[in-house]
């Protein structure tokens, strides 16, 4: 009898599948579930499986804490600025990569992807030493610049795919009907490529919002954003505080990423990997 006889029995195959799904589900979800329960717990002592006492008093603490307020302010001022600058810098390039033939195209593209594979934390340390020289350390614009790095690939790759998908025949038809090249771009190409651009914008916004390591190095102690505050909340406060803050920080990601899930996969595969 072959060693793999069990794979020929449908019930066994199904059982193996079930075990795999349950094991992976437990591995990935149980920690997140624990965190979610902690967000509403007041007293949760070992070895109880659930908290002895629930309360919302830590929510009150989080919402009235001055550091948290400041972090929310810095997060929601840096991330939109980063997204906007990234769009201005990258969208024309996305169009060029999609539609134009020019020397160095291949080299530029590989260079762009190579940045994604760069060991990020070492890069942040190197940038920080340079930012001291440029007086950018501990400043709003220093943080904006360091968050910008992680948005470049996504802001070029996904919109370029969007421009690729616009049918040339449509543009040519408009040209034949007498529209100038700029008019064709604004009225035909751009609106058709807009979904890709919006998704790229969302992902760039989230990349900036969730960026913790570079912001920690360049922004601390003055510009503390929400994920950076997590580092100190985790170690200095009781569990519910970090848990509540995690829930709050996950909300924008969860909503926006679920919305962009389908487009995201293509871009994620293409871009190779997300910096951490």
């Amino acid at each position: 009898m072959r060693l793999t006889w069990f794979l020929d029995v449908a019930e066994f195959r199904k059982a193996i599948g079930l075990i795999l799904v349950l094991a992976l589900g437990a591995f990935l979800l149980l920690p997140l579930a624990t965190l979610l329960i902690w967000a509403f717990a007041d007293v949760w002592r070992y070895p109880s499986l659930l908290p002895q006492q629930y309360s919302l008093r830590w929510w009150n603490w989080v919402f009235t804490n001055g550091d948290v307020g400041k972090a929310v302010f810095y997060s929601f001022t840096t991330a939109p600025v980063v997204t906007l600058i990234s769009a201005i810098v990258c969208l024309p390039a996305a169009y060029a990569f999609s539609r134009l033939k020019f020397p160095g195209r291949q080299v530029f593209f590989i260079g762009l992807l190579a940045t994604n594979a760069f060991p990020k934390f070492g890069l942040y340390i190197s940038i920080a030493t340079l930012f001291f020289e440029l007086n950018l350390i501990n400043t709003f614009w220093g943080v904006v610049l360091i968050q910008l790095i992680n948005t470049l690939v996504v802001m070029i790759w996904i919109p370029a795919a969007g421009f690729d998908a616009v049918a040339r025949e449509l543009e040519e038809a408009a040209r034949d009907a007498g529209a100038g090249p700029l008019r064709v771009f604004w009225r035909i190409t751009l609106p058709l490529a807009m979904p890709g651009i919006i998704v790229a914008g969302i992902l760039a916004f989230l990349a900036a919002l969730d960026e913790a390591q570079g912001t920690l190095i360049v922004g601390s102690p003055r510009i503390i954003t929400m994920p950076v505050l997590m580092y100190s909340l985790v170690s200095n406060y009781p569990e519910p505080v970090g848990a509540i803050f995690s829930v709050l920080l996950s909300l924008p990601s969860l909503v926006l990423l679920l919305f962009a899930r389908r487009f995201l996969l293509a871009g994620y595969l293409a871009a190779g990997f997300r910096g951490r």
Partner: protein
Amino acid sequence: MVREGRRYAPAQQLRPFAFSEGAKEAALGLVLTLPPMIMLVLLVVVPAVEALLFSLGLVPKDNVVFSTGLHLVSSPTPTLKVYRDLFASHFFVDDLVLTFSVTFATVALTVVISYVLALYVRFSSGTLPEIMRSLYLIPMFVPVVIASYALITFYVDHGLLQSLLVQVGLGYGSPIYAQSGVILGEVWTQIPFAVLMIGSGLDGLPQELVEAAQDVGAGFFSIIWRIVFPLNLVPVLIVATFSFIGVMGSFTVPYLIGPNAPQMLGVAMNAYFGTYQQPQPAVAIAVLTFVFASVAGAIYVWATSRSGRVA
């Protein structure tokens, strides 16, 4: 494109020295792609080169951090003293050993786990693989800081996992604040990309090949080992390379979950830079991570070109 000829001809008549359409397109392309390339040079190339020079003892006079750092090595000609000092310190050597053992363990575990998951999704149908398809993506939606904290609350001493185990009478030693905890956290974060990448490779595998092998009586493992695995080597190499670079240079997971000493390179860099006020060793460690990453990248390029030749 249809009208290109018509637009092009009169211009040529009026201005004999006018640039061709192709040259104009090339110029426009360069102008449009220049801004992000300048960004890349300013934010990646310049800092990396400056870091290299600084770590070799070439200290610019006007940089306050560079020139006021403790234990500064300054020399008019390049010197390896900073690196020699690092390697002479047993703290750093321990850090290096920890980093590589965590990295290799994570890469191996990630590849094996992700391969099994990808195979399952590829070669089975029904609701379970469909659930799996959404399940393995979850870490992608969770910022690493939050993921690390979630893992701590679950696996920590007297955490939920220990509570669960004690119900069935099992003992427990927490991996949190130990090397195994770091590996656990790194694998957790690497899974989505690895499964996606290996899965996309498996999707490209010709179904006829697998069926032909089945027809001649090849068993499950022999099909995997003799057909699927050799044909799907490049995605595995990509996963191994990217997770090697990602884990070797990581900060958040080892900083929050890892032991106090030894530390992974990212945590050590941060300590030298902040706590010890010694930017030069910090930057030297950063340069080392760049070197390790490029070695990994080179091996990847060599291996893919070699497997391309064989195939």
